[in-house]
Structures are given as structure tokens and as C-alpha cells.
């Protein structure tokens, strides 16, 4: 399994760069993860989404879809796309250090 180094720590990730062990993620890693996704600076709104995602993952075992995020996080789908332009569910999951959302069939 590949690893990547964030905030000076090597962590296991999958082929697409998602964390496979969310317990290894720390907040200081987020800025570097965000830059890799082309996001310059993390604002309070970004952090609202990141913290919400981590709480959801802890409770449900998977990250939510964009639609569910828009309904439950307090951030609308439109704003989610402004914050995380390349697809909020996946991009934000990557920055929040949780595995790739399973989505639906």
C-alpha cells in the first residue's frame, strides 16, 4: 500500500490518495492536503465541512454524498462546489483524511 507524507508523518493512502486510516490524520495536515487539491487557504467554511465530514465518518463509517452534505452540514451544495471546486464529496474527504466515499449504485 502506498504512503504519503503530511506534516512530517508518513501515512498510508489508497491509489487515489485517500487516507485509509483516518486516525492518522491531524489538523496540521489539512493545509498541505488542500494545496494538493488546488485550494490555497482553508477558511472557517472549509473547516466547517472538514469537521462535519470527520464526525459523519466516525458515526456512519463512510463520508456522505454531496447531496447529503448539502442537506445536513449547514453548507449548501452550491457553496460546497465553491469551496471544493473539483467535486466536494471526494475533495473534502481527501482533505479531511477519510477514505473515499462509497456513494451509491
Amino acid at each position, binding site marked *: 500500500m502506498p504512503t504519503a507524507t503530511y506534516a512530517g508523518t508518513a501515512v498510508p493512502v489508497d491509489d487515489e490518495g485517500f487516507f485509509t486510516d483516518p486516525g492518522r490524520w491531524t489538523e496540521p495536515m489539512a493545509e498541505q492536503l488542500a494545496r494538493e487539491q488546488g485550494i490555497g487557504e482553508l477558511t472557517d467554511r472549509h473547516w466547517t465541512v472538514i469537521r462535519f465530514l470527520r464526525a459523519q465518518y466516525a458515526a456512519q463509517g463512510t463520508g456522505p454524498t*454531496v447531496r*447529503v452534505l448539502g*442537506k445536513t452540514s449547514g453548507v449548501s*451544495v*452550491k457553496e460546497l462546489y465553491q469551496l471544493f*471546486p473539483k467535486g466536494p464529496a471526494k475533495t473534502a474527504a481527501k482533505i479531511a483524511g477519510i477514505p473515499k466515499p462509497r*456513494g451509491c*449504485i
Partner: protein
Amino acid sequence: MGKHIVILGGGTAGTMTANRLRRTYDRHECRITVVDQDDDHLYQPGLLFVPFGLAQPHHLVRSRPRQLDAAVDYKQARIERVDLDARVVHLAGGIRLTYDVLVVATGATLLPEETEGLTGPGWGEKVFTFYDLPGAVYLHHALERFDGGRVVIDVADLPVKCPVAPLEFAFLADWYFQRCGIRDKVHLTYVTPLDGAFTKPVAAKALGGLLKDKGVELVTEFTLGEVDGVGGRLVSYDEREVPFDLAVVVPLHGGAEYVGRSEGLGDELGFVPVDPHSLQHPDRPEVFAIGDAAGLSASKAGSVAHFEGEVLVHNIGRFLDGKPLDASFDGHANCFVETGFHKALLIDFNYATEPLPGHFPTAVGLPLLKESHANHLGKLAFEWLYWHSLLPGRGLPGIGSAMPEHGKHHVSD
């Protein structure tokens, strides 16, 4: 005094569950009540064919209670809400039903009004859906008048019922416009929020290849944010645009409305979260969900409801006997995919195994993930089986609940 099993929803899943339970228990052991708000049981797989004039709308609808065993009670009423603590279903008109076991089988609801502009100007004129009967009929009239231009088939976002149906629509549209002699004047585009034609890699490749062969442009990772009916544009949340003269949109889906009014019953989208294997509600052991109403990572398809049925009825029996649930659903789904020109392909998969090539149900059966005339005949024969074998809750000979492994070829990308 016998137990009372209340089944909410008299569609595919609810009807077969009621009939299966009725055969398992006699009247003194169990009273079974099915609730639905109307008397129109729609053969949903037929909707795909209506826009192309291949199915007559009135042939697709039959009476709901007539599909039920005579010893099942049918109550036609709007469901207001479920009180999980009191184990009571509140119906319109102040009717209350007390249950020992509740089965939620009210399917999925279309939510076109949740997408900006979708039901605005142009809705029913150049923006359509074929996911309900009126929509499919309007689209039929529009296709008859259509003489060329850009036709876009779009899936707004997941989950949707029968995820292969929009692909089938694209395949049939290619066939239809060829038959009309105007295929050279029609640009077909398939737009999906997924990163390929289908969720699972091997099938995505095969189905994506078919789109290409049929000259259908594929636009991926497009989550529908807005429909501009006047300007003829679909706009994604990340501000990409797809122009159209005629748009066929599969709207957002949610659970039935009353689920949202019933505290503790459903999830954010109104689907009922149940254990993926036992189909039991995590907080309410007397509540089960089946079919499209269940918040599972299985396809929302009639075949799934059918395969779930056996497990559900067994587990309800174990629950009533006070025993641990021991039947386990594997996520089995099986879909004929109509590809036009009297051909279809067949896919068969479950939670763990993606759709693979091979044959179904055994090495000498129907070809999997490959176009054939036999599969098309299978799809046509299915309508009769639906009314006469699946709804009565009988199995199909040689096809069990669990996905058959035999006959499948595992492939590596």
C-alpha cells in the same frame, strides 16, 4: 390473538412481501395489512418503452389490491406518519393501525422541484422525464414531433431507481432516430454524475463502449445544478454547460414523504436505513424495509426487492418467534439492459461482486454483459413473469436469492 403485520406500500416490494407472508402464515397466526394511497400498480420497467411507442400506457397499470392474496387486507389511504414508540401508523382521516411488525415498502419518490429550474419554463415542452407515467407519455408526444437537434439524457444525482434505465433510453433513442430516418440530424449526449457510464468498472467499460459504438457522447462527473429551459442549457454545480433542444432528465430521488414526518424512521433523504444483510432497522427491531425504500448500497430495482423478499419473510418469522435473525441478503441484483435493435444485455451482481461477463444462472444460461437477442426476449418475457410469478411471491425456477457465482468470468482491468 394473532400478530399484525403492516406493510406500507403496495408496489413491487410490498405486494410480493404480503403474498409471501400470507403463504407462510394462516389468518389466525397473522393479520396482514397493506396500505397505499391509490389503486394504480404501475409496471415500472415498462416506462422506458412508452416514449418510443413500444408500450401502451394503460397496459402498464393494474389494480393494487387485485395483485394481493384475497386474505390480505388492503387499506387505501394517505400515510400521515409512523409513531415508532407507540407502534402506530397514522393514516389520513384519523385512521390508526397498530402493528407488531412494520415493513416499509413505499419506494422512492421523484423530486424534480429540488433541482433549480427543472420544473420551470420548458418543463413538459422540451424538458422531460420518463420516470413517471405522465412524463413518459409527454415525452412520447415530443419525440413524435422532434425533427432533429441535441437530445441530452441526464441523471441529476444518485441514488436513482434502475440505474441502467437512462442508459437504455440512450440506446433506444439511437435505434428510434435511425428508424425514423433522422439519426444524422440528432446529436445524442449522455450526462452522468458518475466518472463513467456505470458505477462498477467492468460494466462501465462495456456500457461506455456501447455508447461510443452508437455515437452517443458521454459527459461524466456532471452533477446537475440548474436547468435553463428557455436557453436550453443544463448547468452543473461546477458551472459546466451542456446545451440541448430536448432534455430527458432523471430527477433527484428521495424516500416517501411521510418518512420525513416520522421521527427516527428515515435518513436525510427519507430512505429507511436497515442492516444490509438482515433488512432490520438498527434501532427498532420490529421495523424492516425492502426495495427502493431501503437506504442500502444495493440498486433500487425490482429484482433486488425480489431477492430481498425471501430473506425478509424468513427474518420476520424469526423475529416473531423471538429468535435471532439468521437470513442474510447479499445485495443480489439482476438487470436486463435493452440496447436497441431487438437486443439486450444482462448484468448480475451483488454487494461484493461487480457485474462480470459469463453466463447466467449457470455456464449454459443467458450471456452476461454481452448483447444478444435471447436477452431481449428475456426482457419481454419478464413482464408476464412480473404479474404472474414475482408479485404472487413465487420464485423463478433455478434462480435463488443469492447471486450465482457459477458461470461468471472474473476479469482484471
